[in-house]
């Protein structure tokens, strides 16, 4: 069957984005990219992907907004509380045996998971020995992560999640409410390095004890997932931990054998 015109245009658009802006979405899972680019077409009032390509190539000012369509920034603090409970009860006791720790939040988006982990590590007495690396390809999202300001109407959900994750303190200890927003305590990020990093095109940058990369790999093709798992394998210290999203798994990857299940239901793996 010949390619639909729309699919030819899609390939060309992603190639144009790569060559002009060096963001490589060419090997992403296409069904989701296509949906989001359709939303971008509607927003930019373009009839076709070709029109969108024209706009993007000739008006650099639209690209940051375009990037917000290409990357999914849906997150919440302590999302899937059972994951954080498993970290608290099962993984952190192992991490306690190290004198210093490095933790990588790969695809940190607007920072919800970073603050969740910082609070968890503080509650469990590990914060002082830990460096956090929060990376994403979307620099606008990274700026928001660094600011640590979340809309107040999201706080009840975050609070409930934190409680279910076995939280030992009150979430309200960590933020100040002002003008409809919760501003998180900046000491939570005093040991965090925020950085622009791509799992698609960048290399390993430090040896990690724990990598949390949740609901990022679902947007990748299997080939790209393999590249990311390769990075994680190279980056993790011996017996380091990898945490994935609740419906992600390493089973279809060629790096399956580099890891053993540590807490299968919580998608926590340990490098062997």
């Amino acid at each position, binding site marked *: 069957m010949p390619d639909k015109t729309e699919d030819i245009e899609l390939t060309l658009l992603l190639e144009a984005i790569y060559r002009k802006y060096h963001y490589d979405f060419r090997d992403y899972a296409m*069904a989701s990219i296509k949906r989001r680019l359709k939303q971008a077409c509607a927003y930019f009032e373009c009839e076709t992907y070709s029109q969108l390509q024209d706009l993007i190539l000739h008006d650099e000012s639209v690209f940051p907004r375009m990037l917000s369509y290409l990357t999914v920034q*849906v997150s919440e603090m302590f999302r899937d509380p059972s994951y954080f409970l498993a970290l608290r009860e099962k993984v952190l006791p192992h991490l306690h045996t190290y004198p210093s720790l490095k933790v990588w939040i790969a695809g940190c988006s607007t920072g919800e998971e970073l603050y969740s982990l910082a609070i968890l590590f503080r509650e469990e007495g590990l914060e002082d020995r830990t460096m956090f690396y929060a990376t994403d390809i979307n620099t606008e999202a990274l700026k928001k992560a660094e600011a640590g300001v979340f809309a107040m109407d999201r706080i009840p959900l975050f609070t409930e999640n934190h409680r279910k994750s076995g939280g030992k303190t009150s979430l309200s200890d960590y933020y100040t409410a002002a003008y409809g927003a919760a501003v998180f305590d900046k000491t939570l990020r005093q040991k965090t390095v925020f950085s622009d990093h791509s799992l698609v095109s960048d290399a390993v940058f430090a040896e990690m004890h724990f990598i949390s990369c949740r609901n990022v*790999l*679902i947007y990748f*093709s299997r080939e790209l997932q393999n590249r990311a798992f390769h990075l994680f394998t190279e980056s993790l210290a011996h017996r380091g931990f990898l945490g994935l999203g609740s419906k*992600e798994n390493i089973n279809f990857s060629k790096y399956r054998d580099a890891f053993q299940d540590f807490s299968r239901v919580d998608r926590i793996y340990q490098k062997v």
Partner: protein
Amino acid sequence: MPVIVVVHLPRDKESVLSEIFSPKCKLPVVEVQDKEPIMNGTIYIAPPDYHVLIEKNRFFSLSSEEPVIFSRPSIDVLFETAADAYGSALMGIVLSGASPDGAAGLKEIADAGGLAIVQDPATAAASVMPEAALLSCPTAQIMDLRRLSDYLKSFSETRVCA
């Protein structure tokens, strides 16, 4: 043929649908996994809190994108991506439900040459969903559950059913 099922469920509970349906179905019933190849003769259930999308090379992808019409998984997201991947080799069925989710997607299935079927709203426990689907896709065939069941049983192995 593969069968792919979306049921709106609370997001914070593990779905037990596959456990409920497994003993009642001759075909294997499993929850969709990300990047899993789509196999004939298998019934796939969407997991709670994730959209299910169909890739052109016959794989599933999951997504945490925003809910659509307050739903994740969304029927529209499944239908639209399935219509794009399978074209006329697809059947879309909208059953009872209390939201208009699925209406836009069913029209895309019909527009791509696939077969659209809607449960007779008069026989549905909640008629909002089939009524919305008929409004959006007036060419859809209307069936009650008994007829739909006979119809599906008579079907050959050539179509995908979402």
